[in-house]
């Protein structure tokens, strides 16, 4: 029953997300515009034909209803700006984005966890200061500079994603762990002479795993958010680059589909984190 209700919630979020995204795109200025209309060679008939094609989706409710009907049949519609089926575009690009995103997230988490563990074990003010400064500095560097810098160093987009995510994940993790260290049971364990590493893993980090899990779920949407500018700037042919182009072109079919995917990923990641946490609490 719990599983069914969670699945129903996920479905509701997906449908609402698609409609909301379609509405946002529709009401934004520039919908139905294309630089083709600036071509001075076009006659009135051609201009009218282009405007008609671009106005697809003007009635957002009707468009979305039709979209859901076609989605049921596996038809994701055609991109207005690229003139190709959205399904084709996504299947070409999903692999690239998945690899960059997962690799970037994995690297960011591994680095952040390692940094937190090392800082806790080292207990050196200098290390703490340097780590904070480095993480803070990374936060201050524009995404474009991070992405271009990684390219200059011969790195892949996943490195840029990792650099962007690391500072955020590290900051949260550090504060979660530091606050957990003030807990009475930790102080008691320390007084009992328990070794630092065991103290850190069993007594500090173990109790705060719900927050860490929630952060992991949230980092999925952070990764998606980072992938879009990184792929656009690095010209990596992934979904992020497609989204950027679609946003500039107000390409409604692409944006609705990609929003559904992102909503699904985000909701699924967070739902998994919540389910795991709830199951663990039930066992406890």
């Amino acid at each position: 029953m719990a599983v069914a209700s969670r699945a129903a919630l996920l479905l509701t979020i997906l449908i609402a997300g698609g409609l909301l995204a379609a509405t946002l795109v529709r009401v934004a200025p520039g919908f139905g515009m294309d630089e083709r209309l600036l071509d001075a060679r076009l006659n009135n008939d051609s201009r009218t034909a282009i405007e008609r094609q671009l106005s697809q989706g003007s009635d957002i409710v009707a468009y979305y209803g039709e979209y859901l009907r076609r989605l049921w049949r596996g038809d994701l519609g055609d991109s207005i700006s690229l003139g190709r089926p959205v399904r084709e575009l996504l299947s070409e690009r999903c692999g690239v984005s998945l690899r960059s995103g997962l690799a970037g997230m994995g690297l960011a988490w591994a680095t952040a966890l390692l940094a937190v563990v090392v800082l806790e074990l080292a207990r050196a003010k200098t290390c703490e200061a340097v780590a904070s400064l480095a993480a803070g500095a990374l936060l201050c560097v524009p995404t474009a500079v991070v992405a271009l810098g990684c390219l200059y160093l011969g790195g892949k987009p996943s490195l840029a994603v990792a650099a962007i995510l690391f500072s955020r994940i590290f900051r949260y993790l550090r504060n979660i762990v530091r606050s957990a260290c003030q807990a009475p049971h930790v102080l008691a364990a320390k007084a009992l002479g328990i070794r630092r590493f065991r103290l850190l893993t069993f007594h500090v980090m173990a109790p705060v795993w719900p927050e860490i899990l929630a952060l992991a779920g949230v980092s999925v949407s952070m990764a998606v958010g980072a992938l879009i500018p990184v792929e656009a700037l690095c010209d990596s042919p992934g979904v992020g680059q497609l989204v950027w182009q679609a946003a500039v072109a107000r390409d409604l079919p692409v944006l609705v589909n990609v929003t559904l995917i992102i909503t699904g990923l985000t909701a699924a990641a967070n739902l998994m984190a919540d389910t795991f946490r709830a199951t663990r609490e039930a066992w406890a």
Partner: protein
Amino acid sequence: MTKRRVAAVLLLLLFGVLLAAEHVAPYSYATQFRDAPNARPSRSFPLGTDALGRDRLSRLIYGGRGSMLLAPAAALLSVGMALAISLLAGCLGRWWERGAMAMADLSLSMPWLFALLAIRALLPLNAPPVATMLVTFGLLGLLGWAAPSRVMLASVKRHLQSDFVLLARASGCPRGRLALVHLAPNLLPLALAQFLVTTPVFLLAEATLGLLGLGVPEPLPSWGGLLQELENLPSIAASPWILAPLLVLIAVVGLFHLLVSADPYSV
């Protein structure tokens, strides 16, 4: 003097300089010395000039005024909303919790850029630049609650199982007081982490949004806009003084961190 006090004093000094920009900056941010474009640092121009001959130091000072006042304010807004929503969701029960988190997931996935564009379009063309900045940062603040609220909610739920909360409940503590007095202080580390992360992110977001017409209009400078010059990486080697805004921003974020961080020792 403790580190916190030093950080507070330095930040106050900085804000003082920024607020008194008219008296501190050597020139107006808009004055173009067209005979000295891309000038190297000198006595007349301590940080050199930009491509239009505008004094970089003056633009750094004036730019900080908008960026350093509005970015932290927007960050505070998003943190405050995240705190409030996570406390409400945690304390009011399962359906509120599910509803809030569903809203958070939706908020994280939506292309809010288009909402920003729509709201910008509603502003009159001759609106004062301050209005544009306020709208941009205000919207960033309103939309930035979703990610931290999830993490904070997990923390709320964990603390709800704590002994001190059970004791408070058993003592008849009302839910409001429970949230504000017993739970909220335990969320402060997360809130502070969020604030420290979000302030520079919002500051830079303004510059990224500038690519779409949602940034600070000319000739007003902003730190995000000044940092965009760094995208031309080879120019950094040729003109390293263009790193000045980045170094100042790193210093400011570091000072904020010193000001708000918990005690350094842990295990």
